[in-house]
């Protein structure tokens, strides 16, 4: 029972982790806490429904098109909303993403309605025995996807020129510019990556929850809390934070009752911010503005 709770906690935690990573990546390159991150996923889930049901595309083709569409949405958000105010203080940037959040909520409700929709690809609850515990097939698949995306990100940041350049911009944008790194392009790339991650999260989470304009609200908050665990800076910190939240809320849900789930995430952040405001891992970089 305990092992099973932990396993399914890790499974939901791995989806929070992808959201948390997107929050971190955008924040550390643009000083923007992106409230629209969850809604990128929500748009992805709706687009996936259309591609699967209306156009009858197969699952993998749907993933590819969805990822491209949401990357474009990320880039569009940067170009149309964030770039014109890029030099503003963080509160302005934050408020702008709140605007994008409401716009996307509105647009989704207007096009697809406010009632919840079922995702055409269903979650596979078939139990699989692994490490002496039982975990559903669907959870296992989601963890597999999350791990694969994690590996892709690792390789990107560690070995590709643009990935290293993204880290260089995080480190010192001014000097990056001196090296001839086009910082604006890197920022665009950052938002494209936020879209890339969002699309996967939307498609993977849709069979577990439901599809509706507000479907991602709670996931976004937990992803954000996880990002704070990494000091809004460290990707490994954010991932570990997300897995911890997934497990903790699942244990709370199992042993205390399901309405304690969300409260657990917040209790964790309160405790964390009291004792380690710089995040659980490493030092938060305070960038001069």
């Amino acid at each position, binding site marked *: 029972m305990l092992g099973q709770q932990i396993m399914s906690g890790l499974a939901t935690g791995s989806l929070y982790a992808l959201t948390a990573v997107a929050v971190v990546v955008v924040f550390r390159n643009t000083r923007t806490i992106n409230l629209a991150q969850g809604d990128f996923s929500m748009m992805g889930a709706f687009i996936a429904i259309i591609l699967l049901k209306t156009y009858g595309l197969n699952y993998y083709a749907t993933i590819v098109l969805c990822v491209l569409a949401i990357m474009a949405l990320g880039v569009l958000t940067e170009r149309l909303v964030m770039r014109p105010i890029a030099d503003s203080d963080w509160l302005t940037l934050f408020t702008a993403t709140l605007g994008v959040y409401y716009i996307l909520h509105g647009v989704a409700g207007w096009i697809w309605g406010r009632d919840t929709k079922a995702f055409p690809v269903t979650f596979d609850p078939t139990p699989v025995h692994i490490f002496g515990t039982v975990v559903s097939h669907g959870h296992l698949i989601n963890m597999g996807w999350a791990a694969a995306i994690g590996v892709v990100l690792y390789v990107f940041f560690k070995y590709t020129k643009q990935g290293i350049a993204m880290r*260089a911009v995080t*480190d010192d944008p001014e000097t*990056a510019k*001196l090296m*001839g*790194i086009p910082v604006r392009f890197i920022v665009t790339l950052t938002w494209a990556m936020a879209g890339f991650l969002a699309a996967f999260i939307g498609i993977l989470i849709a069979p577990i929850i439901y599809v509706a304009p507000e479907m991602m609200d709670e996931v976004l908050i937990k992803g954000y809390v996880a990002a704070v665990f990494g000091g809004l800076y460290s990707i490994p910190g954010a991932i570990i934070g997300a897995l911890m939240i997934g497990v903790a809320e699942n244990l709370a849900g199992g042993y205390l009752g399901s309405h304690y789930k969300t409260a657990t995430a917040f209790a964790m952040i309160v405790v964390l911010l009291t004792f380690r405001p710089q995040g659980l891992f490493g030092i938060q970089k305070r960038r001069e503005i």
Partner: protein
Amino acid sequence: MTLLRLENVVASYGAVRALQGISIDVQSGAIVALLGANGAGKSTTLKTISGMVRPASGFVEYDGQRLEGKTPNQIVRLGIAQIPEGRKIFKDLTVSENLRMGAYTRKDKAGIEQDQELVFVLFPILKERARQLGGSLSGGEQQMLAIGRGLMARPRLLLLDEPSLGLAPLLVADIFQALRRINKERGTTLLIVEQNAHVALKNANFGYVLQVGRVATEGTSEELQRNREVVESYMGTQQ
């Protein structure tokens, strides 16, 4: 042959009119020192060349091309690399990642690898530390990395902003020896901003002394060294 020419450049940095009409001439293959007290406009001069600051009037000409209005990215591609004040290496990137970022604008893989080897020959310690984070290096090693990173762009003109800052005299001598070697072996033209006039003039061919945004005096290093009192009066309380 003139490689770089600044003609009557006026530029502001923040609210300060840092350059009030500066004219400078850098000959191809030379080592030129740009001296002056704090706030004389030395760093702003370099930033104007590298495209980080736009001149309000006057022009910057490099190899027959006007540079004003070009982006830093375009200027690096034209063969001008800047080594910023305080070294500014990427702390969370490894030594070899730092070097790779110096070559960001280049696509010739073989050439990049070759240049990395040259940097390692010039500064063997960087090869030993290749996988360490930039932030873990000592001050002298960071300056070597900053120079190496600049060289990775394979520049024809290297701009250095206070390479001696905060380094022990022995290290300063090492750094300048390396710079002379770069100048001699690779034919790279160097424009060096320094507060340490003594070291700079010992290594340069020509020098300019700035005072509040203008060129106060200029001359060959020998001339300036002979007029040390004049130079030092412009430099403020130096040495």
